């Protein structure tokens, strides 16, 4: 640092230390206010927050979800162990569940479908004409004869037999749609679980899946999540205490982390944001940054004390003075990297990005001000909290680092890193966008939910829906034979994809009606030959039906309709293939009176998310690098500095992506927050080490010696933080939520790469390339520190 800046900063620090009581009181007061606010923050999942804004699919979904079924569907499957579902026990359970579902909060009562719902109808011809009546509503069959009649009616109805009663007749399905926005996942989950529990037994298996259940489960595990969080923090305390052997070395980093967290959550409340339980891991990620900065200061403080500082104040002052630049650089760069995530047009990411930015910026006060001020109260006399001393071990590790980077091995380190970068960079292309496996990646593959999902998708056409809207150009367009035939062909084309279990549209309904009209003759199971005939068929289907029964197929004007496709899974690849096939088909087969609009339902909106996140992530990385380069250029007045610090960031990103690709963790809406916020994480520790080298060079010109010194001082802080954080984050792998376990490992990897590049790669690069901004040059030599800059006593 230039001597002039150095002196100005010293004066500022003196001022803060002089009024330390006032500073601490102000911080405590502010923390209390924020703590009050933070306590009120809501922890919940809002599905619409996950959907990209202004994406055409999401717009189609929002426009039509009320009629054609949105993304919040719950499927309940009743499966018999023996026989088939046509017995009183099962039918009664179906009726009970159907009725109980009406009372579940947020459920769309018009969109509950089962054998016992009013909308499940049988259409048949009688002497009076076409009659359509509910299959099993309002009452259950009274005797074996009526059960046999019901069974016949079901087998005869392609809208029921297949979609709602499995082909082998051993399972039946009940589906309920929830109103977007009105659904409270926690309540919905609890109520549906109760209903399902009540129906279990008597040789009937009950399985439940659907997004509301999934997010309800996540909330259900919130208690456990918080427990793990607490245990992690506990482990952190123990580890810090073990390694630092001092109470101030243990508590101050924790206070820093806590204060920052409180401020961030309070700020989030002020911004009217809520907290998604799935991103609680992110909180740990940022807390790790806060702790890391604080540990650096404490560690430096201890070094200053050991070097013979006269008082705690003087040691605190010296520590802050020396670490101010790399600390601020790390905070500002991190905050910038997190802020650019807001550019991804997904509301949840924006919110997390804003909270994260505030959170990281708060470290400026919590670590860079509060820690040194509190340190100034600590004694200079060494008092150890326990006799176990791991420092010799740390010293040996640091000695190894120093030995490696100052010997010929440094070339091996640089070459090794280059190879790792190249290999992981290529392997990272295998990263899957969207879910990489069937079932929900949030939960473990052997979780009840995922097993249920597999079972349901085996018995039925698929529990994940996508609707493609057929938008007519005029009223009645959907009665045109060309449009209906187009829809039929489209469905046939889409069903060639094995993951598409089936599809349904008006073009399936009308042939069934026509067959009934034509004495049940199978040769007449086809669409009407003219718009008029189709109109009559529609009329026959609707007559006697309730208003709204037709809604899931077409609107009353027969202008807009939907083709609903059922998917057996929602893996990224499945969705991409389906969307590509829809686009291909639509481009090749234009309809005269209508057009196909992509895409609604869960699979439709997931397609939108998947389309956005890859581009969004690359964009975020690019802007994060830009922020980083700008920060480095400003601080070190050198573009080479930007290049230099880009190395650990790029490396940590390619390695993380490779790990995700290797472990089959897809980049999806749930992993994205952690992945996105992790972009800038590879670099903090490097700032401390490299700046340590540079500052050391203010005192002499021996680069090798400067590196060894920096590793033994700043390196110690890096090592302590990395060791404690990596060890405690491993506890996340015990979570019942697979996502959190995965993300815990991901964070551990980041911290490890971050530490490894700081301890090995960066010093080795300094020694190999000797960049001008660190070691100086003939034209711009490093300014030597004024000899008369002793540590002042206060």
């Amino acid at each position, binding site marked *: 640092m230039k001597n002039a800046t150095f002196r100005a900063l010293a004066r500022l620090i003196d001022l803060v230390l002089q009024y330390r009581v006032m500073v601490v009181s102000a911080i405590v007061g502010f923390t209390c206010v924020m703590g009050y606010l933070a306590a009120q923050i809501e922890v919940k999942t809002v599905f619409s927050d996950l959907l990209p804004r202004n994406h055409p699919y999401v717009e189609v979904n929002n426009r039509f979800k009320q009629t054609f079924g949105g993304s919040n569907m719950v499927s309940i499957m009743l499966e018999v162990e023996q026989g088939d579902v046509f017995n009183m026990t099962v039918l009664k359970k179906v009726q009970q569940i159907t009725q109980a579902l009406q009372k579940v909060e947020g459920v769309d009562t018009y969109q509950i479908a089962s054998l016992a719902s009013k909308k499940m109808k049988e259409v048949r011809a009688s002497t009076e004409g076409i009659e359509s009546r509910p299959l099993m509503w309002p009452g259950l069959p009274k005797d074996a004869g009526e059960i046999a009649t019901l069974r016949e009616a079901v087998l005869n109805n392609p809208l029921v037999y297949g979609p709602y009663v499995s082909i082998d007749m051993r399972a039946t399905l009940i589906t309920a749609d929830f109103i977007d926005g009105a659904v409270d996942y926690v309540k919905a989950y609890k109520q549906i679980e109760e209903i399902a529990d009540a129906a279990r037994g008597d040789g009937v298996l009950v399985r439940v899946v659907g997004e509301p259940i999934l997010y309800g489960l996540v909330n259900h595990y919130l208690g456990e999540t918080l427990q793990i969080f607490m245990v992690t923090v506990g482990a952190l305390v123990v580890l810090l205490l073990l390694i630092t052997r001092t109470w101030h070395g243990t508590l101050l980093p924790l206070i820093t982390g806590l204060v920052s967290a409180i401020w961030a959550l309070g700020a989030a409340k002020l911004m009217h944001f809520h907290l998604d339980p799935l991103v609680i891991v992110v909180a740990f990620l940022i807390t790790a940054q806060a702790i890391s900065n604080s540990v650096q200061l404490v560690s430096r403080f201890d070094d200053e004390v050991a070097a013979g500082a006269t008082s705690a104040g003087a040691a605190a002052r010296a520590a802050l003075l020396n670490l101010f630049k790399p600390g601020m650089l790390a905070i500002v760069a991190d905050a910038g990297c997190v802020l650019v995530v807001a550019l991804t047009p997904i509301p949840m990411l924006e919110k997390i990005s804003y909270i994260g930015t505030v959170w990281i910026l708060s470290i400026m006060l919590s670590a860079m001000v509060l820690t040194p001020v509190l340190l100034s109260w600590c004694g200079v006399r060494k008092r150890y909290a326990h006799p176990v001393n791991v420092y010799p071990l740390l010293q040996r590790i640091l000695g190894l680092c120093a030995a490696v980077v100052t010997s010929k091995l440094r070339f091996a380190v640089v070459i090794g890193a280059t190879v790792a970068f190249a290999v992981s960079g290529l392997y990272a292309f295998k990263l899957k966008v969207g879910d990489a496996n069937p079932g929900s990646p949030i939960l473990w593959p052997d979780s009840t939910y995922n097993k249920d999902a597999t079972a349901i998708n085996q018995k039925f056409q698929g529990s994940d829906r996508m609707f493609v809207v057929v938008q007519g150009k005029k009223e009645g367009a959907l009665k045109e034979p060309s449009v209906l035939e187009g829809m039929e062909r489209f469905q046939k084309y889409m069903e060639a994809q094995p993951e598409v279990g089936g599809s349904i549209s008006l073009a399936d309904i009308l042939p069934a009606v026509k067959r009934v009209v034509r004495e049940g003759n199978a040769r007449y199971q086809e669409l009407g030959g003219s718009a008029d005939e189709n109109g009559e068929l529609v009329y026959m289907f609707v007559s006697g039906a309730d208003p709204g029964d037709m809604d899931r197929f077409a609107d009353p004007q027969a202008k807009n309709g939907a083709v609903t496709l059922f998917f057996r899974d929602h893996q990224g690849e499945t969705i991409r293939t389906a969307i590509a096939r829809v686009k291909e088909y639509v481009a090749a087969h234009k309809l005269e009176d209508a057009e196909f609009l992509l895409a609604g339902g869960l699979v439709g909106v997931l397609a939108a998310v998947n389309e956005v996140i890859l581009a969004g992530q690359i964009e975020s990385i690019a802007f994060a690098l830009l922020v980083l380069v700008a920060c480095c250029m400003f601080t070190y007045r050198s573009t080479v500095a930007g290049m230099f610090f880009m190395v650990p960031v*790029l490396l940590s990103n390619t390695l993380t992506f490779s790990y995700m690709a290797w472990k089959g963790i897809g980049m999806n809406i749930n992993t994205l927050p952690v992945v996105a916020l992790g972009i800038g994480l590879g670099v903090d520790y490097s700032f401390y080490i490299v700046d340590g080298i540079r500052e050391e060079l203010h005192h002499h010109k021996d680069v090798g010696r400067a590196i060894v010194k920096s590793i033994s001082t700043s390196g110690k802080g890096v090592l302590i933080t990395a060791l404690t954080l990596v060890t405690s984050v491993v506890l996340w792998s015990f979570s019942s939520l697979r996502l959190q376990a995965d993300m815990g490992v991901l964070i551990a990897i980041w911290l490890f790469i971050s530490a490894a590049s700081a301890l090995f790669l960066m010093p080795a690069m300094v020694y190999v390339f000797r960049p001008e901004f660190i070691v100086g040059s003939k034209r711009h030599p490093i300014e030597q520190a004024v000899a008369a800059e002793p540590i002042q006593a206060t």
Partner: protein
Amino acid sequence: MLKAINKLGKGARAITSVGTSSLPVAIIGGLLYAAFFVKAEPSAGELKARPLERRDAFYGVVAPGGATLWAAGSNGKIVRSEDGGQTWGVQDSPVATHLQSISAWDAQRAVAVGNRGLVVVTEDGGKTWKEVKVPHSEVANKLLQVHTYADGVAWAVGELGAVLKSADYGATWTRALDEKDQAWNDIAFVGQAGWLVGEFGQILRSTDGGQSWAAVPSPVKTSLMSVSFRDALHGVAVGLAGTVLVTSDGGASWKDVPPPTREHLNCVIWDGAGWVAVGDKGIRVSAGPEADTWKASRISDQDLSWHTQIVKTADDYVLAGANLALLHQDGLRILGRD
């Protein structure tokens, strides 16, 4: 050595410095370019539809000999198998309307008929199918059944009293009976003796190879869907709601058998040893040569789909309808499914 590099001159140093300074810009620029302009579009072209798709209905199937099978169905689809139904190939069809029936003179020459009075013929085993002109009605033209006989003769029947005849392997067709507001569902010939069955239980009989037809009293009013004779005297007709009619005097008089089922029966055949009929919901009814006692059963508990035709091959039966299936010693295998 470092000095040597330094001596190399300012030029080299300048290049290095420009290089390292512009590299960050290049990397960031590259990433931004990728973010904005590179779209990972998966190619969907890999996925080829199978010859037999889930949505296909096959109304007609024919076994012209050997291991060859030929089926026609919805949206003009025609498929052929050379190995008794194990593998199928889709043939180029000139039409997209539903085909209701297919019949073959031999492995090369065949005819298929369908909705809107559509008739297509082939002379080369189906490599090329071409549409031929047939007499049309102003009102309705759906053809429901076609049968081929020796010397290039073919008979097609359908809506609005359509009875069409060809004597030149389907190249030209003439109307054999006048239009009337009643559909003919099936036709059968044994030598010069012929029978027509249709809506409202109507039965016609010819004894001169179809030159002239005469009405026969029918014991039922329900539609008859199919008729079959094992010789010039013994025949069976089946129809809706499990209707079964039996004759043993060449169709002059028909006896109403108590319905063995309530399901619609769509097709009846003589399989060489007995009578077999199939219809809705996977039903099969059968009787011995005398056609006196009929019993009904499901072909398979796993499959309740409708069938419009059953054909006997050397060892198997082939079923057409909501799907194509092979029935071998009571084991049903639906084709084109996993």
